[in-house]
């Protein structure tokens, strides 16, 4: 019979297709870390045949969270998605997230104590504030603000120590002096910070300076504006002064800010650790004409190193219309475990600090370059966004900061005016 081999093949194919579980996965990683996530997904799909992860990258920020919410309401959600810890309060308010039970975690051989404790604690607080309990996401990483520097330019300016690191800076005055020296000795723009159509970067620097003075925006889960007029204004004034003196880039967009630094036209860059792959890849391809270093954002007010940070989570959308089948759940948990266990160091290659403790403790991670230059210090200094639904990625505060602080950086308004307008905006959001 000539038909039988074909028939057998057909049967084999259908049974294989039948057995394979598809996992639809949404993320928002479009940059260097997106390449890392793609690699993890590809490796996972290649490593076995029972589960196939279909990854789709959506637009970062507000559009992502709007899309997730509409998907939840329509009952047509992905099976798994990435999420920001800072967006969790808002997500819980909208009931977009499904909690992970201990049994769920066990399906992937995980437990909640496997993850960095402060992130899990924040998730628990978020749940409590929303009037519920449970673990609504699994932390993948911590990501924070770091300083990238051009060693060649800094050496020329005489502010680079023998150890290849910036000379210590203990106060805002120290940092300002360093920036001034760079400017006068080399003529290169000292610091690249994007502020044109990039409210997130402005917020990150301002919030770090605000935190280091001991400022807070949320007290007992409620919005608190008392520190804004003092510490908040001081932080904004520093940024405005740097801008006025030409010490930071004025009105550059995000890609332009990165381009200025990588082209050697800015001595330093303040940006998230997710730009690490950009530097690593450029260096590997010999496109970088200088030696670079990375350090944690310095403590400029005594010993308080607090720096803005956020965390990426893996989360399951709360699909009330179509409840997840046990097979699907098993597949999702298997993939989550893979991302954290086998994929952990690949993800760390994106510059992030992995939150899965065994990865964090692994020798491979501890020796990873250039991450070791900042990861230990940065992990300690990392302070998450205020735990309130109006803050965080996708919330309205980012826009309000961009709209009200950018004119101050451009010298079109005073710091006092900028803060006053932000206060009004925050009060409106909290209504």
């Amino acid at each position: 019979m000539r038909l039988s081999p074909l028939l057998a093949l057909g049967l084999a194919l259908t049974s294989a297709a039948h057995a394979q579980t598809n996992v639809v996965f949404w993320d928002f990683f479009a940059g260097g870390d997106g390449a890392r996530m793609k690699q993890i997904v590809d490796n996972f799909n290649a490593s076995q045949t029972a589960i196939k992860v279909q990854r789709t990258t959506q637009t970062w920020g507000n559009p992502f969270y709007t899309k997730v919410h509409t998907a939840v309401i329509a009952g047509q959600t992905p099976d798994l998605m990435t999420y920001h810890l800072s967006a969790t309060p808002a997500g819980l308010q909208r009931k977009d997230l499904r909690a992970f039970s201990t049994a769920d975690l066990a399906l992937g051989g995980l437990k909640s104590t496997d993850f960095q404790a402060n992130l899990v604690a924040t998730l628990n607080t978020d749940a409590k504030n929303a009037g519920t309990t449970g673990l609504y996401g699994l932390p993948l990483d911590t990501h924070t603000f770091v300083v990238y520097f051009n060693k060649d330019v800094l050496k020329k300016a005489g502010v680079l120590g023998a150890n290849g690191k910036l000379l210590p800076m203990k106060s805002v005055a120290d940092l300002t002096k360093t920036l001034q020296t760079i400017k006068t000795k080399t003529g290169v723009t000292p610091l690249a910070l994007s502020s044109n159509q990039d409210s997130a970067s402005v917020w990150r620097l301002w919030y770090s300076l605000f935190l280091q003075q001991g400022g807070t925006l949320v007290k007992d889960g409620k919005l608190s504006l008392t520190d804004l007029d003092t510490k908040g204004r001081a932080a904004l004034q520093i940024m405005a002064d740097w801008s006025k003196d030409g010490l930071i880039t004025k009105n550059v967009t995000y890609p332009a800010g990165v381009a200025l630094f990588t082209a050697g036209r800015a001595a330093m860059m303040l940006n998230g650790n997710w730009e690490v792959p950009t530097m690593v890849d450029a260096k590997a391809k010999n496109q970088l004409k200088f030696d670079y270093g990375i350090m944690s954002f310095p403590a400029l007010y005594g010993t308080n190193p607090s720096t803005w940070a956020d965390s990426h989570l893996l989360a399951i959308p709360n699909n009330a219309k179509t409840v997840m089948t046990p097979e699907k759940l098993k597949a999702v948990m298997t993939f989550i475990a893979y991302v954290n266990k086998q994929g952990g160091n690949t993800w760390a290659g994106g510059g992030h600090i992995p939150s899965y403790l065994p990865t964090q403790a692994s020798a491979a991670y501890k020796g990873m370059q250039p991450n070791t230059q900042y990861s230990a210090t940065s992990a300690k200094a990392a302070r998450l966004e205020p735990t309130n639904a109006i803050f965080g990625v996708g919330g309205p505060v980012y826009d309000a900061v961009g709209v009200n602080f950018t004119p101050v950086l451009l010298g079109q308004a005073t710091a006092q005016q900028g803060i006053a307008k932000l206060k009004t905006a925050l009060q409106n959001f909290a209504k």
Partner: protein
Amino acid sequence: MTSSPAPAPAAVPGRAAQLRQRYLTAALLVVPFLALYVLFLIYPTFRVLQLSFTNADLTGNGSYVGLQNYVRLFGEPTFWTALLNTLLFIALTAVPNTLIGLGLALLILRLNRLKNVVLAAFFLPYVLPVSVVTNVWNWVLDSNFGLFNFLTGSTVTWFQDPVWALPSVAFVTIWWTVGFNILLFIAGLRNISPEIYEAAALDGAAGWRLFRSITWPNLWPVTSLILLLQLIAQFKIFDQIYLLTQGGPFDKTLVLLLYAYREGFQQQRGGYSSTIGVVLMAVILLVSVIQLRLLNRGEKS
């Protein structure tokens, strides 16, 4: 008809059946349009109206709250800022866009050669999607790398400057859409009978006089149509603002639809956002009616 005692002539039922069939055909042809119209226009309109009386979130689940949204809206300074900015934007675009369109149409018609090439050049931006247009101008007017500032030595941050942001967006809008107005004006100008011009020329009219007494009054129906279209289009300004300024700096470019977007999509206040939509619709209706009245009066005199 059914109670009619006399038997009808044989031809009549035939004609009735034919007539019925024709109605059926007509109905069938209209149904797809009607269905889409009801589904995507009438239904959403009434739904928004209904939502504006609820505290619904983005997805439309909420309870009735009466006029609360309207009371809040009219007491909200941000709403008045947005309304004022929208009106300012209209002032900066509707009339200039019409006048520039008219001017360019007159110039193009005077060309002897390359008329179509020039017309195509002016019309080309209109074909571009808004994202392309805003990207182009974001680069041209960029304060650091932009062509414009490079050539003029200016340091103005066009889309981030509290004074210049709205005029800059208005300029981009005119550049983008004026081609359509030129096209309408050219059609209107070609419709004016050459005999009128000849008669006027015989009477010794020329230049400005010719334009004022012949072209302008004869073109008025087209002009008023363009003004009305412009008014409605500019009231609905959103895309360019969203892509170029996000409403900044200091809410100086915050317009009504962006305000509705922020409330609806960022803050998940679907009910309140619908209220903004309803008020915007009412304002557009009101202004259109007033404008139509005024313009029609102009036509009659």
